[in-house]
Each structure stands twice: as C-alpha cells, then as structure tokens.
C-alpha cells in the first residue's frame, strides 16, 4: 500500500488556507442552517398543535414531504431545478461586505427546510413528554395557555429535547458534505478538488474524515456541557461523561438519566 505519510501529516497539521476556508464554510452553514431550522421547526410544531385544521394539515404535509424525500434531491430542486424552470434563482448577495454565493444561500435554505421537519418532530414529542397535569396546574394558577407553555411546559420540554436536537445537529454537520453537488466550496468539495490535482485520494479523504470527526467531537463536548447545565437547573444528576458517550461505552443507568425516553419519531 502506498500511503504518503508525509503528505498526510502535512495536510492534517498544516492545512492549506483553501481547506481551512472550506472547514469554516462547513461550520458557518451548519450553524446558520441549524439556527433557522430551530425557529422553523418550532413554528411547524406549533402549527401541528394548532386549533385550526388548515395549519395542522400544512404541518403534516410539510413533515411528510420533507422527511420522505432525500436531502440531495431537495437541494438540487431548490438550487438547480428552480433556476432551470425560471422560478427562482439564488443570486450572490453582498451582506455587510461579505459576498454570499447563491449556492451557499441555497444550501442554507435546503438544510434548514430539511432539518426543520425533523426538529418539529423532536419539539412535538418533547412537548408531549411533559405531563398533562403540569399544564392543568399552570392554568389553575391563572396562567394563560401561552403563559403556561412558556413558563412551565417549554422549560421542562427543553431538557428532553436537547439530546435529540444535539444529535440532529451532529447529523446536519455531516450532511453538509453533500453540498458539493450544488457547488458549495465546503470542506468535502475542497478535499475532492485537492485529490483531483494531487492524486493523493486516500490521504486527503482520511484527513477530511478526521476533520469531520473533530467537528462532531467538539460538538459532543458542547452538548454534554449544555445537558449538564440543564440537568443542574432541574436538580438532576449529571449527564454521562463525554468519554463514555464518544466511545459508546454507555452505562444503562447513565443513559436513562441523560436521555429521557422519547417516542420514536419516525414511527408516526
């Protein structure tokens, strides 16, 4: 096997500026798409609980269509398809002096739409996990339904939602690797360009994989911190240690505490 260790270490430890730009773009797209998806996902979840039938129908259709089609196809339709049909074209825009490429906007929109459907189901099951008596107690104390939601239900639901939301974000970061299909110069795209010009295919993609692993590991650390913070607020024991979580050595007891049981969302 011809593995160029020198090239490998060089690419890993002193990545080119181009590669770092790709890494940065991966992070930025992930964070922005996730933030928007949280907002849209919450809206969809609330629509699904609305008293108005049309809103409930819209929410179910949205979730059905988005979750039932591949992200790859959604991205191509949004970016290439819409432009080809003359419906909508993502133009490069200048935002506070930074040029945002059309493809990047399409990527953020596509990931946001895709992720929001999954998030709305996480939010829904999170809200449903809070005992009905909590809402009744809040109402009986004179809170409005919205007040009860905001002050009593949501704070309890968030603790339940964070673990699956965190996993969702992990998945989202990895999904950005398919953005190369619409020409976004994220980390994977840069990697494949480099491999095409150097023929160090194996070395490059191992480096790319390690950088994705770095991103997801850093996020797992952050997520554990957030869970511990919320558990402390709720007076619960700490979430399981990061090492256990990363290497899959979950103890049964710790897993039950860290991730309160959620109904499998896909079964719905």
């Amino acid at each position: 096997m011809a593995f160029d260790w020198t090239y490998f270490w060089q690419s890993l430890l002193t990545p080119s500026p181009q590669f770092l730009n790709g890494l940065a773009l991966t992070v930025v797209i992930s964070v922005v798409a996730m933030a928007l998806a949280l907002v849209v996902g919450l809206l969809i979840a609330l629509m699904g609980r609305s008293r108005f039938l049309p809103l409930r129908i819209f929410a179910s259709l949205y979730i059905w269509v988005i979750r039932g089609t591949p992200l790859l196809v959604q991205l191509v339709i949004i970016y290439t398809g819409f432009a080809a049909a003359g419906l909508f074209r993502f133009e490069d825009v200048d935002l506070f002096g930074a040029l945002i490429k059309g493809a990047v906007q399409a990527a953020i929109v596509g990931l946001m739409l895709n992720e929001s459907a999954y998030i709305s189901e996480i939010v829904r099951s999170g809200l449903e996990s809070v005992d009905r008596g909590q809402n009744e107690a809040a109402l009986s104390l004179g809170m409005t339904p919205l007040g009860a939601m905001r002050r009593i239900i949501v704070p309890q639901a968030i603790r339940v939602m964070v673990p699956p939301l965190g996993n969702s974000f992990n998945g989202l970061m990895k999904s950005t690797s398919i953005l190369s299909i619409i020409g976004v110069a994220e980390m994977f795209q840069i990697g494949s360009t480099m491999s095409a010009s150097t023929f160090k295919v194996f070395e490059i993609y191992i480096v790319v994989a390690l950088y994705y692993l770095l991103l997801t590991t850093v996020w797992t650390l952050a997520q554990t911190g957030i869970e511990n913070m919320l558990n402390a607020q709720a007076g619960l024991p700490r979430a399981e240690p990061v090492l256990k979580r990363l290497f899959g050595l979950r103890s049964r007891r710790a897993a039950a505490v860290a991730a309160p049981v959620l109904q499998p969302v896909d079964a719905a």
Partner: protein
Amino acid sequence: MTLYTAPNTIDIEPIVRAVGVHKSFGDKHILTGVDLEVARGEVVVLVGPSGAGKTTFLRTLNRLEAIDAGEIAVRGERIGQRTNQRGRLVERSVRELAQQRAEIGFVFQHFNLFPNMTVLENIWHAPVHVKREPKATAVAYANELLARVGLAEKADVRPRSLSGGQQQRVAIARALAMRPALMLFDEPTSALDPEMVGEVLAVMRDLAAAGMTMIVVSHEMGFTREVADRVIVMDGGRIIESGYPDQVFTAPQHERTRQFLSKVL
C-alpha cells in the same frame, strides 16, 4: 398568621352556583344535570361511587373542563363564558378566563408540582408571574405558607425529594399563595400512602376552620364527617342526595346512597 383570612363582609349570592350542568366525553354522558349552590365559608364534600362524575364536575368549576349545557357562576360571574351585546353566550378571552381561575385554588390528586423548581419557587411563581406581586412580598408569603403547612425546612429542595404527603401540602400552599376565594380539592389524599393521609387532612382541617370555602372530592369518610358542612352524594352524573354528614351517613334517603355507604363506611 393563619392559612386563610376570611373577608369581613357578608355575601348575598352563593360563591358557586351551578345550574343544569351537562358534560359528555364523546358519547359518554358524564354529567347529566348537576345543580349546586355553595355559600361562602362552606365546606362541601362530594362523595359517590367512581364514575359518578365527581371529579369531572369539580373540574368544570374552574373550567378545566368546558360544559356542554347549563351554567356555572363563581362569585356571580359565569366562568369561561359571558353574554355579548346581543345577549348571546360567547367564550371569554383566555386572559379573562385565566383571571377567573386565579381566584380559584385547585389541588390535584397527583399534586402536579413543577419539578424543575424548588418547593419555595413553586409557591411564589404564580403570584409573581401571574399577579405581578413584588417578588420579595411573594417570597415572604410563600415562606409563611410553607411554615404553616409544616415544611419550612424544605424550601430549597426539589419536589421530587419529598414524600407524597409533603408534596400535597406544598401543592395546597401553592394554591393558597394566589389568595383564592375558594379552594377545590380533587381527591387530594387518594394517591397517598395511608400514613401520609393524616398530615394532608390536618392542613385541610385548619383551612376549613379558618373559614375557607372548600369543595372537596374525597373518599375520606372520617374527615368528611368531621369537617364537612354538607355532603353531596353523586351517582350517574347527578346529585342524588345532600345534607349534613350525620344525616346522610346515618339515615340515607336514597337506595344508591345506602349501597355506596355500605361499601365505604
């Protein structure tokens, strides 16, 4: 300081007035015409076999259940509904309903304390966020109430570390913190281990003695006999008998009451 200070005025109107209340869940007719008037300061205990509609009726009094027909007024105001300019009956806004509920304390069978808050925060939360009381005032009053129910030393723990009886006493303090005009109790001791029942009933006894208007769904016949001003027997979604506890327990008029009492006394 007592758990409750009764106002120094006289009400002409009953504090609760229910007329012809009907309620169905699907095709199950749970309440089939309930009429009840409760005077201020009265302690009324609802008894009857399970499925009689006691809990459902209690929940209609603060509109945790909307009613299908009839009317319910608390302190002379229809609960959750009002008549508009054209005389038609319409739903009150959620805000108005919330304000009405704020005057009615409700104690649940399963306590329903907020697990993410400390015991003390459970008690001052609604006075601060719903009634906009200054936090210092609300916290001071919460501490007083907690002392009155005998749990002063539990202020800073989470509800889940308390026993059932302690949780229920906190739940009563939480309801009282809103300074309600009447208190509804939905089987407050049914979820408790037998040795915890007494401590909760003791708090309720104090409250009754202080002059609080109380409507209680209960299976505690000893408590009922001792504390109730009036016993209401429900069966099949309506009131079949009512009267002084001694009268109802020793000389029940209705055959169904006799059957029920023979099982529980």
